[in-house]
């Protein structure tokens, strides 16, 4: 099989092995080496376990289930090819997210929306395409209807400038630490802190009505 070369951005930002992997087996052979089997098992245990998180992140970035599928597949293909460069015991989810983000930038950046500009038609299309894809999964189906109930939150989040939306997604939805986020967005921790502060402040203004309607008090009482 042809050896794939990682895009420059990933080569620069992701630790790579010092030497190429040895003892490669020709893909034409039917027998899989013991080494390859161990790698497959480790990869499925370490990396495939994060597929739902990767898929959701891809959906948020692309707003399109087909593009999200492609992005996740390409991410796993690259991750598998370079799995030897992943340092065992470190955060595999963060490593995968960084590969996915780099893939996204390389693939979709040209068509990226302007920061802060809300394309409500795009959001509507996103829901319609999710609905079209719902036969793939009952969970997606249920999720679709839940999302319709709360699309004010989606719209508020998506209306934020990219740099604020990104850190809020990584922190509040995916649960990454500031250090992991700083590494992913290639900015100092102080910048992550400040983007979260400003992003949440912007969101708060947009979610005031939602908070009142759904019982999230906006005065000094505890939320329900």
């Amino acid at each position: 099989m042809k050896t794939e070369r990682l895009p420059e951005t990933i080569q620069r930002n992701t630790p790579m092995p010092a030497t190429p992997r040895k003892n490669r087996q020709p893909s034409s052979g039917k027998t899989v080496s013991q080494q390859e089997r161990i790698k497959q098992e480790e990869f499925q245990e370490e990396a495939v376990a994060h597929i739902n998180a990767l898929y959701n992140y891809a959906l948020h970035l692309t707003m399109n289930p087909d593009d999200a599928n492609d992005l996740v597949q390409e991410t796993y293909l690259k991750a598998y090819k370079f799995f030897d460069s992943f340092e065992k015991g470190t955060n595999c989810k963060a490593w995968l997210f960084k590969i996915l983000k780099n893939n996204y930038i390389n693939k979709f950046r040209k068509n990226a929306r302007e920061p802060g500009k809300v394309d409500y038609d795009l959001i509507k299309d996103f829901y319609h395409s999710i609905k079209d894809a719902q036969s793939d999964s009952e969970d997606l189906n249920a999720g679709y209807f839940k999302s319709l109930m709360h699309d004010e939150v989606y719209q508020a989040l998506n209306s934020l400038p990219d740099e604020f939306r990104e850190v809020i997604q990584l922190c509040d939805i995916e649960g990454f630490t500031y250090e992991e986020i700083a590494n992913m967005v290639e900015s100092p921790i102080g910048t992550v802190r400040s983007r979260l502060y400003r992003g949440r402040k912007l969101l708060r203004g947009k979610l005031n009505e939602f908070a009142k309607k759904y019982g999230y008090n906006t005065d000094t009482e505890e939320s329900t």
Partner: protein
Amino acid sequence: MNCKKAQALLSAAVDGELSLKEQQEFEAHIAKCADCQREFREAQKTKNIIREKIVRFKAPQSLVNSIIRLTETTTG
């Protein structure tokens, strides 16, 4: 600690990312500053809304299967 410093630490306080010393100083400040205390609670609520209301989709089984197949047919 003054309000400016408290605001700089506010998101980290919401996310449990402060050092013990920073946490103590921040708590001491919001105990006596109603404005910063309100802002801290608002930020907590905003985080809670995002965590609770943004729907998490399950990856389609066809995608999961294709990733599994990919590891079986790709030599790293």
